[in-house]
């Protein structure tokens, strides 16, 4: 009933909000916990995605792979310090049964370098499959479909 729909929407919004929050505020260690295990996290350009080409830029199939990404970011990769700022638009709840919600949302991500340079780094759409069978909600699948197939310099922090 309505209140349920309401509750699901709120839970989904919280999950999606927590995602942007932990990335932008540099609390990446919380990021893997937002996914189930196994899961699917894929950052891929729209041109590849629409052409049915599966090669992305970043890909994880397990929470372990997410943890490795965070560990590596912290300890085993070098890059100039920078941060993101996500703006995620209103969610589009495409479907929801007791177990799974399919949710789309638009995003813009600005990248801010340590020197202050700010650029519109990425835009696109999150295509999410969310496990709503239990609290806390978790991503079963999150595909970040990038509108552009060009990335400036590198992609270190997940989108």
């Amino acid at each position, binding site marked *: 009933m309505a209140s349920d729909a309401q509750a699901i929407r709120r839970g989904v919004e919280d999950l999606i909000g927590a995602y942007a929050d932990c990335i932008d505020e540099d609390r990446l260690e919380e990021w893997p916990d937002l996914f189930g295990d196994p899961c699917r996290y894929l*950052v*891929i*350009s729209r*041109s*590849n995605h629409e052409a049915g*080409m*599966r*090669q*992305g*830029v*970043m*890909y*994880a*199939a*397990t*929470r*372990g*792979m997410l*943890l*490795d*990404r965070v*560990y*590596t970011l912290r*300890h*085993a*990769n*070098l*890059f*100039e310090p920078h941060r993101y700022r996500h703006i995620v638009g209103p969610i589009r709840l495409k479907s929801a049964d007791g177990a799974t919600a399919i949710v789309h949302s638009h995003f813009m991500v600005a990248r801010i370098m340590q020197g202050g340079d700010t650029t519109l780094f990425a835009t696109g759409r999150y295509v999410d499959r969310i496990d709503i069978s239990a609290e806390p909600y978790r991503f079963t699948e999150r595909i970040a479909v990038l509108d552009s*197939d*060009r*990335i*400036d*310099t*590198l*992609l*270190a922090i997940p989108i």
Partner: protein
Amino acid sequence: MAHSEQPADDGIHWPSNGISEVPFRVYTDQVTYDREQECLFQGPTWQYLCLEVELADPGDFVSTTMGEVEVIAVRDTEGTINAFVNRCIHRGNLLCMERQGKAKKFTCMYHGWTYDLEGKLTGVTFERGVKNKGGMAPEFRKDEHALRRLRVAVLGGLVFGTFSDTVPDLETWLGPDVTRGLLRVMNRTPYILGRNSQILPNNWKLYIENVKDTYHASILHLFLTTFKINKLTMPGGVFINADGGSHYSYAKLDYAAETAAYKDAGLRSESELQLQDSSIVDSVDEYGDGVSVQILTIFPGMVLQQVRNTIAVRVIRPRGIGKTELEWIHLGFDGDDEAMTERRLRQGNLIGPAGYVAMEDGFIGGFVQRALHYNDDGAGIVMMGGHEAQSQPFKASEAAIRGFWKHYRALMGQ
């Protein structure tokens, strides 16, 4: 806008000892950049255009760039692959705007002039005017006009083009070693797993040097040492072709031992210093020769890589003195099963813009560029492994980089 950024030449002064000291100004000088377009990218070099499988049928075309110049590659009705400059003869409009497609002919959208698949001008709208009024000046003969043509060659399923009439045929130019290296990797029919491109904030040469630089890998790429990747690597070597411009380096790996090692690792998963999920390095010896890494470069700006089971072509496209576009074309091969595809995709985390091993290569050139900003006097030192540019059986060497400069100076006349 070729000339819009062109300054007076500051002169590039090469230190006496040839190719083991590289003047920093080659990365910052606009005149040098413009001459590179002419002497290298429009000069006697073979450059990657596309995969042959992208031009499977007559009419299939790809539009791309060679250096800064827009070009088209197309398979004609006889099945021949032609390539020409993507610039209409009439007023210079970009003839073809699609990146890929199928065409019977090329029609310029501006005034409708048409060209056949060999680039010959076949149609001029209103050539004789409308109702006998207007039309082209009588002495204009359309059969005297065709798009500027490129030579084309195919090797290992890769299509190459050149503006030069004098450069030797592709295999001769590459030499036996590099040809062999290329054919080793491209030993099956490829398909495209996906493309990614990166904008690098640096001069294009800093990236191709980085690829040829066998010296930095174990130092810059902490990931390899942190997780002891390649710890079972056996010494490899470097092959450099005669002119010095093209090369490949390789290393072998005890695949079986590594796999076993990761199995054991499973038992001590508490260890901080190992991957939680090692599937990203879980590799198979798909070439059956134990070689786990082969990096091949073709002068001036192409790379063919095998890093374990990731196969990719990289194209380096200059976009100004301090800007370079790097395109990754990730390949699979006919006959790959789902397990192999998934393996390539997971290993894909090692390479590309977010690659555990490739990431640093994406910004290091930008750091050099920044350090040279208004500070480009003097020369860098490229003396690891001596002063020559010979093939060598070891990797703690900068020989391949010296090779690049050897051929660079020859073509640039410096």
